[in-house]
């Protein structure tokens, strides 16, 4: 494998991680989804490049799925949901840009330190991909735990899945069964989430999970509903 080949793969994997970092500090939902779509495009390119390098035709299909489904269908659907739920003007501030970046860098450093050390004997390309994939996975997880809004949590989950696909594609000749199933499980996951969102919308009038948190444990309905209405006052639409 030539140096250029490797560098392109490296650059794409790095870009994927960069997109994850950028997502950490997005306050507006539309911006977040756009970056997610961008990340999915990068993923598609990255997987396609792996297909070229590994002469693995089945990876083109994975790339195509990533592009069509994750870069087009899901962002479109999320846009629709956001508009329908009337939360497009909502601004989330959970942690500031500075701390988010620092935490993100720390996680990336951790991923690199762990994976590069552990995979000393694996071929170089897979090694880089696994390290970046772990970084994307951890960043996605961080996003899921720091965000309150259900849509941003979904996006965190989806970006985390992008990292998993990068890892699977970068590992030479991983059976196709698995990749199809990944795509499939994302589809299922998405349907599930969609269903949930609409039900949450029906019941709570907001997708802010703080409203859900109020129901934690064994408290009763009456106690929890005032919290829901309080959350709601801010975003009355004309």
């Amino acid at each position: 494998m030539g140096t250029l080949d490797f560098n392109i793969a490296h650059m794409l994997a790095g870009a994927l991680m960069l997109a994850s970092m950028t997502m950490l500090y997005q306050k507006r939902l539309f911006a977040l989804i756009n970056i997610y779509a961008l990340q999915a495009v990068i993923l598609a390119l990255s997987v396609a490049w792996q297909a070229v390098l590994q002469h693995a035709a089945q990876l083109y299909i994975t790339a195509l799925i990533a592009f069509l489904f994750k870069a087009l269908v899901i962002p479109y659907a999320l846009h629709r949901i956001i508009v329908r739920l009337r939360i497009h003007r909502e601004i989330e501030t959970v942690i500031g840009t500075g701390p988010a970046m620092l935490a993100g860098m720390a996680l990336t450093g951790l991923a690199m330190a762990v994976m590069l050390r552990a995979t000393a004997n694996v071929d170089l390309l897979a090694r880089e991909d696994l390290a970046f994939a772990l970084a994307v996975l951890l960043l996605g997880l961080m996003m899921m735990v720091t965000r309150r809004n259900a849509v941003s949590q979904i996006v965190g989950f989806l970006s985390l899945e992008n990292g998993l696909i990068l890892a699977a594609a970068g590992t030479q000749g991983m059976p196709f069964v698995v990749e199809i199933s990944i795509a499939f499980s994302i589809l299922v996951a998405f349907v599930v989430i969609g269903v949930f969102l609409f039900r949450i919308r029906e019941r709570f009038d907001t997708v802010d999970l703080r409203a859900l948190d109020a129901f934690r444990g064994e408290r009763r309905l009456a106690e929890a509903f005032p919290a829901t209405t309080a959350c709601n006052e801010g975003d009355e639409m004309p």
Partner: protein
Amino acid sequence: MTFDAVSLVLIIPLAAAAVLAALPGYKTSSRFNILASFLTLAGAVDLVAHRPPLGSYFLVDDMNIVFIALNTFVGFTTSVFSASYIAHEIRTGRLTPGLLRFYHVFYQIMMFGMNLALVTNNIGLMWVAVELATLSTVLMVGIYRTPEAIEAAWKYFILGSVGIAFALFGTTLIYAAAQPVVGAGMNGMTWTTLLAHSSAFDPAIMNIAFIFLLMGYGTKAGLFPLHAWLPDAHAEGPTPVSAVLSGLLLNVALYAILRFKILFAANAHVIPPGPLMMVVGLATAVFASFMLYPRHDIKRMFAYSSIEHMGIITFAFGLGGAIANFAGLLQMVMHSLTKSAIFFSVGHISQAKGTQRMADIRGLTESYPLLGWGLVLGVVAIVGMPPLGVFMSEFLTISSAFARAPWLALPLVVALLAAFGAIMRHTHGMAFGAAQGEIRPSEASFIPVFIHLGIVFAAGVFIPAAVVVWFQHVAKMLG
């Protein structure tokens, strides 16, 4: 040929799901659900009798046949319980016929997912199957559509997807470790091939892979610290779902961990997986046993008890060796049977009383003698009183822990005693004393409850020699 023998336990649930999707009328479909579950059980019995040869996709050995038999058996008894449970839900209007159709379809899809996870010889396919089973239970947990149910399902889903991610990353790492040795392609995912070459895999990758796999599948098994979904999912979903979650899905996740444990134990250079499992298991058991005290909701309490038992079982398997593995296996079987029997009783009790609050449930043995005593017997079994099955397995675990790691045995004993106290205290209030509240007629089906408890009692007194030999063999496989 291989495919034909295994296919029964897979095709029946899948076909049943398709039929149930088309069947109108909940009465017919709940009967059909029972029939399908019974046929699956028959398929599993056939599998025990005629074990198929090893294939690259399916693997049936002494170890997973225990799980398959247990899975299909409890699946069948739960479907019997489910029929009488949902009839009541329809009458009270908590569920609509449309939702029930959905419920039955996903019940069978879940059974399919669990059976597939158990019979497959491919770690990728196993991952897919566990995910399928998890997602179908997520949908079933949210079925009541109350805010609590939706929150429970959402929490389950979010934590479940963290588990999904970890487990898949761990699986990818295993493949990455195997690929230089066994070559690219299907071989790197076939469990038997992996086991044969495990000693040559790169230990550094394997170490990291095990952490991800333990965390990932551990989330599904309800292991600390990613157990938070479990009490909510048990409390807010329909009770038959609580029964299969506790009785079956946790076992399937544990089965995945055990398969990987065998794989790792075969490589002398990796950090042994046992101690890690012991620590996680012990932390889970201690944590859950103290969380049992402040509970108000009956299903939530028994959910914490499930977490506690999963901790003990994981500890036993982590400890390893012939006796502890035997104990872990026995405890797993006993816990499944007992806990699902308890949930059957609890389901009927909460329907009869119209509440899950323990403070509002009083004097059951007086108002509903059969239900009340069913619950008491189940509780006596689950806390590990002699001469029942759970006592035997817990005794073996503790004695083997005292022999080999006395300092770890101590917190385990504390956890067991704490759990004993908490569950007894709560149950005493519910079962005895003067009856409270209105006494509505209950059309409970007692057969599943007492079949399960009967087996548990019998196992405490006498286990057939053939079963002992069988379990001992599995214990040896587990190392």
